[in-house]
């Protein structure tokens, strides 16, 4: 009897949270669906709660991919830590066959690129595609000439409808702690503009921020997948929306020339949502 009540309560709670998440995505068949997390690998309770919230979201929005924006692991990075800071928080997603594609942050051991579930193939920078979307994953810790030459080559040769880049350090940021990585911007942005990159995701700042389009490119910061720097967003002309009061993650759906996004907090509240039409607002 007591067990039945517990199960019933859990179901009711789950339904309530789904309703709270208040899906704002079209959830179309054959669309590209993915989630985005960054700065998550603490192994602490908030990371687990975000992981649980992602699993709940997947019940009604079946994303098959998670982009990891770096600082996937903090502190010790021994085999047991991969269990505590990655496998357990995202167990439901991993069990469901969701693939994680990571980039490295400044707290990640460089050898983590060989960790199979991160799908980096042992590379610091790599690319992969999902239907009409190509993702370019960079190592912003150190933009060496080799990586820059590679990036230009793959951007130039890509004929995919959507080009999305992600890496750890944000080119634009209203973070009081770090701010914009201007030197990276000077090097990377001209390539993004020249070769039609539409959207850029970064982490490093421990909050969520959506920036006003810069030179036609949409920039998002999602660095609150486990960490949180509460109240760290400073007001500026860059900011379109932001959330620095709780941990969060993003859901993204791309269908044809439209990209829809929804940002959900650790407790299941939708803190931002909207859409982007490729080739214009």
């Amino acid at each position: 009897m007591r067990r039945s009540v517990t199960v019933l309560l859990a179901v009711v709670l789950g339904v309530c949270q789904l309703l709270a998440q208040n899906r704002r995505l079209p959830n179309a068949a054959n669309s590209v669906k993915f989630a985005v997390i960054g700065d998550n690998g603490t192994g602490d309770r908030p990371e687990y709660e975000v992981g649980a919230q992602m699993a709940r979201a997947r019940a009604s929005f079946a994303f098959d991919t998670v982009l990891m924006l770096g600082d996937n692991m903090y502190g010790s990075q021994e085999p047991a830590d991969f269990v505590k800071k990655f496998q357990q928080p995202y167990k439901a997603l991993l069990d469901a066959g969701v693939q994680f594609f990571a980039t490295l942050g400044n707290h990640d051991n460089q050898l983590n690129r060989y960790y199979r579930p991160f799908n980096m193939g042992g590379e610091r920078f790599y690319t992969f595609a999902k239907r009409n979307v190509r993702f370019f994953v960079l190592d912003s810790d150190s933009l060496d000439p080799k990586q820059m030459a590679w990036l230009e080559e793959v951007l130039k040769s890509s004929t995919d409808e959507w080009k999305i880049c992600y890496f750890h350090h944000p080119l634009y940021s209203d973070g009081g702690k770090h701010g914009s990585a201007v030197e990276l911007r000077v090097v990377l942005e001209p390539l993004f503009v020249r070769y039609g990159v539409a959207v850029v995701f970064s982490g490093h700042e421990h909050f969520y921020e959506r920036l006003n389009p810069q030179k036609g490119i949409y920039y998002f910061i999602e660095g609150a997948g486990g960490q949180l720097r509460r109240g760290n967003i400073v007001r500026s002309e860059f900011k379109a929306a932001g959330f620095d009061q709780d941990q969060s993650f993003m859901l993204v759906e791309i269908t044809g020339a439209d990209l829809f996004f929804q940002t959900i907090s650790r407790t299941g509240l939708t803190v931002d949502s909207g859409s982007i039409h490729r080739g214009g607002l």
Partner: protein
Amino acid sequence: MSLMGIVKRAFRFAIDHYVVLPVGVIAALVWVQADAESFFRFSHAASFAVNEVGMALFLAVMTKEVVEALSAGGALHSWRHRSMAIVAGAGGMIGAALTYFAYLKAGDELSVLGPGWPIPCAVDLAFCYFVVKGIFGRHPAVSFALLLAIVTDILEFLIVALRYTVADVHASAVALMAVAILAAIALRTSRVRRAWPYIAIAGGLSWVALFWGGLHPAFALVPVMPFLPHAPRDYGFLADPPPEAHDPLNEFERTWKYPVHIVLFFFGLVNAGVLLQGWGTGSWAVLTAALAGRPLGILLAVACGIAAGLHLPGRIGWREVVVVAFGSSIGFAFSLLVATQAFSIGPLLIEVKIGALLSLCGAFVALVLAAILRVGKFSPSISHGSA
């Protein structure tokens, strides 16, 4: 004194004390805070010309000073004088490197920042010299500090040249470097008494060899300079050679002295622009290693040297060694140069650059310690006024 005289004296002071470098650094810091995008566009455009071409001349001038000091007749020729400074220099490097690693090991950024360990190991020869000379005046501690710094930077050059490659190394570049060295030897045995053939032929080949081989061409003239014939005596570190010194080594210095200052200004301008928000773990690691690890390593190495039977040069005791140890903790321009070799564009480079710039604080620490320990110009035995 006339206005012209004041200007001339100010210019002379600026040249003698390498003032253009900090001026370039300050200009970069002001510019980057005011308009970061335009600064970085400029610095990226000018980086190769300054760091890999212009700095070859600066490193050549520094190598010239080292060659003269270590040659017969040079102030640091005798092994008897060298031994303790060599031990201290090596100890300082080990202390700096271990502290750097220990600092990073305490956190989780060792993996990405680890390759920067040679940054706090470097000593800015010119700044170290001016600081120690400013404290001690004419005292054996100056020669001791100078040799310590030279030993450190020779080891540093080797580490940087061999460790940080910018491209895939081509084996054929090794052969080209051998040709460059053979060309320098041939010029020397042919008794060529002008500097430019050594620089243009041997230096040019060496530059291409390093560039082609994926190593840093800023070091191109370092292996060539020892082959330039030089005067039978050393005129002093960073001192002007007299007009009668017509040997190729001094001719080289006379020709390139002022262009090198222009290079140094641009080196400061191109490399020192860091946004203050860029402060991070790398800044602390470099600073701690330079200001704590290096002096501690020097002091421990000297203690070990004494225990092993080596002797400190005359008139140098522990108090002087302490001040020299901190005076030589300034990495500044040399650390900046190493930083640009260790890391590519990115936040990590900015972090370690901030640490390198702040290693200038070593000068202040050395001054305070000299006052506390009453050595050099703070020694009570030196009279500062009339009765």
